[in-house]
């Protein structure tokens, strides 16, 4: 079936695929996820058209793309739930195709939609999956207590799963995939459908997991959220990777201007002209209560702009760099085509 274009051996002489690891600061960082020329077809329709991806251990990689771009298909491949695909997919150096059982031991998957067993309490639900993950009986109670504490679900342990709010259900799903302490977490739109509070709580939880050294592959439609959380992002459209790299790399690549909002007390008449002449500033626009300064971040950093304004004797009452304008990047990179 899957005539893998690349054999696992091409990337790793050992099962851990260290040879495919990128070198950063003279240190080899082993890859948690390695995808090469991944292609997924449903009948005649090709959902994923040759995506390649390297995610080192401990990285949080954001997967962005419109509906039908091929994100969930990629997740399903890595979660061993897509039996037919072409290309290579390794999770912690383990081939998804030939070592699916082992992959499940090192990976935790939260699908974009998930139901819960209505007849179980949260505690029973976690015990159910602890048994399914084949955790030793002696360790189960301790592990379940730990994940309940981590996800702040202890007070809901004896509540029926069916009665939990969506945010709580998402936390429970995260608790479930943490039971066997996986190295890689695959989270397919974990924040979708959550209210702002639940979304912020989820983000904090993911940050905690990142600090624990987990490798996280996360997809989301809330782009600003990904920019705050992810070390790198990949933008996919129509089954192809349009761009990938750090958020700053993508801005640079797209020549997206950084916008800084400033409010100046009693500005001099020629101040706007002088600011305009600062190297790296593209435009200065006067708004009702503030100035909107657009700058080339590769020429002038936000800190340098602040310094330059102070040197121009501007009395700043507000200096607010705009959050990463991911929407602009996304719109620029994609053409709005969906499958």
């Amino acid at each position, binding site marked *: *079936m*899957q005539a893998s274009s690349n054999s696992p051996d091409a990337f790793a002489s050992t099962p851990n695929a260290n040879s495919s690891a990128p070198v950063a600061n003279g240190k080899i960082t082993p890859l948690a996820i390695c995808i090469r020329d991944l292609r*997924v*077809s*449903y*009948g005649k*329709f090709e*959902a*994923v058209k040759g995506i390649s991806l390297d995610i080192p251990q401990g990285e949080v990689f954001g997967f962005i793309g419109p*509906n*039908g771009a*091929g*994100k*969930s*298909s990629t997740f*399903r491949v890595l*979660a*061993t*739930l*897509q*039996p*037919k695909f072409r290309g290579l997919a390794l999770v912690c150096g383990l081939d*998804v*195709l*030939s*070592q*699916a*059982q*082992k992959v*499940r*031991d090192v*990976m*935790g*998957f939260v*699908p974009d*939609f*998930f*139901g*819960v*067993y*209505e*007849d*179980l309490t949260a*505690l*029973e639900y976690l*015990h*159910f*999956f602890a*048994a*399914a*993950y*084949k955790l030793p*009986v002696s360790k189960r109670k301790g592990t379940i207590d730990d994940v309940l504490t981590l996800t702040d679900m202890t007070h809901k342990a004896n509540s029926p799963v069916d009665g939990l709010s969506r945010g709580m259900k998402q936390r429970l*799903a995260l608790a*479930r995939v943490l039971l*066997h302490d996986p190295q890689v977490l695959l989270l397919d739109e974990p924040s979708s459908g959550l209210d702002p509070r639940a979304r912020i709580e989820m983000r904090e939880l993911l940050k905690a997991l990142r600090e624990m050294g987990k490798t996280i592959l996360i997809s989301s439609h809330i782009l600003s959220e990904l920019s705050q959380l992810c070390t790198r992002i990949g933008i996919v459209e129509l089954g192809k990777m349009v761009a990938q790299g750090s958020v700053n790399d993508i801005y640079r690549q797209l020549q997206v201007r950084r916008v800084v909002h400033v409010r100046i007390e009693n500005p001099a008449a020629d101040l706007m002209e002088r600011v305009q002449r600062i190297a790296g500033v593209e435009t200065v626009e006067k708004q009702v209560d503030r100035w909107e300064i657009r700058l080339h971040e590769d020429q002038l950093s936000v800190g340098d702009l602040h310094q330059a304004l102070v040197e121009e004797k501007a009395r700043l009452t507000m200096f607010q760099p705009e959050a990463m304008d991911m929407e602009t990047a996304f719109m620029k990179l994609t053409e709005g085509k969906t*499958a």
Partner: protein
Amino acid sequence: MSLLRLIPELPLLRRELIELSNRRRTYIVRFAGAIIILSIVMVQYFRVMQVISQTANPGGGWVPNKFNGSGGVIFSALVPMLFHSVQLLMPALICGAVTIEKERNTLGTLFVTRLSPMTIILEKLASRLVPMLTFLLLTFPVLAFVYSLGGVDTTVLLSTLWLLLCECVFYASIGLLCSTWFSTTASAFICSYIVVGMIVMFTQIMGFGYLYPVVTPFDVWNFAFGGMSEYNVYMSNRGWLQQMLFEALRESSAAAGGQLMTRVMLLISMSVPSLMASGFFVLLARFFLIRRAFVSSSSVLLRVFKRVDTFFTKLNDNTTGGVVLIKDYDSLPAFDPVAWRERSKKSLGKARYLFRVLIVLEGPVLFICLATATFSMSADFDGLRVLLFLMWAITAMILSMKASTMISSERTRETLEALLSTPMSSREIISQKVAGLHRLMIVLSIPILTIHLTLLLMHFDIVQIVRSLSLSTLGTILFYGAMVAATTYTSMHLIVWLSALMGLRSPTQARSVMAAITVLGVWVAGSAFLLTPGEFGYSFGVSTLSPFFGIQEQRFSENFILPSQGWDPRAEIEQQEKIERLTATMSSVCCLMRPDGSIWANESILASNRLAGISKTAPFYAFSRLRSTAVLVSVLVLAWHILMMVCFRGLTLTLAPRLLQRLDDGIPMNSPLIEKSSATLISEGAM
């Protein structure tokens, strides 16, 4: 243009019909349905022609025009098949009409449109009547041909068409009511068939007692035409009410000078009760459409049991102050989580709930068995066999429903992906799911074994056996007991594994239940139709035999008993022995191929002890004349069924990773089934 404006737009009906026409399945089902209906009609046609041929020509000479006017006989044999087709197909067609909207969460959007609830109900009803009527249209050319043979009155033809329409509306309204009441298509499907089955059984039972309640259009047709055709020599007189109706029909037609419309109007007026009943069901459906639009999809049985629990707990608190002798304890899964959930959290898994199910099933069975054992004068009572098959039908339906939905219910509730991403292999998941059904199987086997025990006690005098210490009889009893236990175990597992296999592919519970029950139903009905060994001796074979064996035996009799030959006693004995061997072999083959074959084969062990009173048309009669043959056949049939069960189990477990769309180590994924499932994924937008 102005006339067109008068036609209502009917957007829901239009949408339903467009959806129906866009589905490839519609055409496949229609084609398969047409083939089945036309095959049955043709077989019936040839069978009747054969009878006419025999009765019109007993001497063997050529009788010209012998088929003239034979349309009436063929017609009265064909039309019941059409009515039965409606009874069989209509619930399946309509049970999902409203539940599908509930499952897709689209019913609310319909409510906020300007469509009134009654309009929704009527358009849904019409949308399911259209495909059923197109099915019936397929048989009209055959009816036209039969009409051309003569013997079918125009009144009969037109009234039959009208009553067929009424039959469709009647059963459609029942199915629609179930669809509005239940939250899932699977529940509505099961309930529709239970209600339809009860109505059919009730009218049959009333028919035996010549009571004839004029409820269903089929009853009306039966009263008016079923047994009164002057050509129908095989149907007996049906009772005073039927005669009265027939006479009224005849008198009215005579009084009206044979006016067609008068006679038709009389028949139409006779169908009013069924139409009123249909109207009542439609009104009830309208009543429940909104009230039960957003009911929880959790198990109805589980909710009933929980309410019963609450009632008894309150009663206990009030009467004893809350004394509890045996406390329930909530265990947690140690090793087999899937089996644990099936056993401790499901309505048909928890020991306490299963005990209640056992009481509900075993109580009436025990009562009937005790009554039969006490009052029956015969050692062999066919009524107990009917009860046995009824119990098996209930058992098969419950097990099939549970086994077929064990994966699709996870799919519907979106819990499957989480389960599949755990390190449990697909084999483990399926095996644990089946293991979770073991308790239910034990509970369901108890009434069945009770009936077998009663049959055993009726055949043997235990006191006499103990006194005389007859080891041979004791051995037979023990052997029968062992075979019955093994057969029950095997048959239940066979049903479970077959249903599980059918349910693995289905994306919804309704489809998996329908697929499993259809396969089982086709196997049972098809084999009962085609593989009935029939009466030994061929004296009057055709009317009692299935068509293929009827024709087969006809050939034997023509080959072996030739009137032109002189009478030779030795030749006749040899001939008789040969026929006996052949019949026994054919009966054994029938038992091997039938799903209920092992039950029949076991009955042969009892029958071999006392053959008197056993019907010659019983499938096990032929090989019951020798105990050794009976034992051999029953062992063979059991072995064959065990082999089939093992094959189905192996097939299910082998195909499980592919059908679950999952990678398991070392399993190649080249399968057209995957392509098929992938297409389903596209339609679900999982990418």
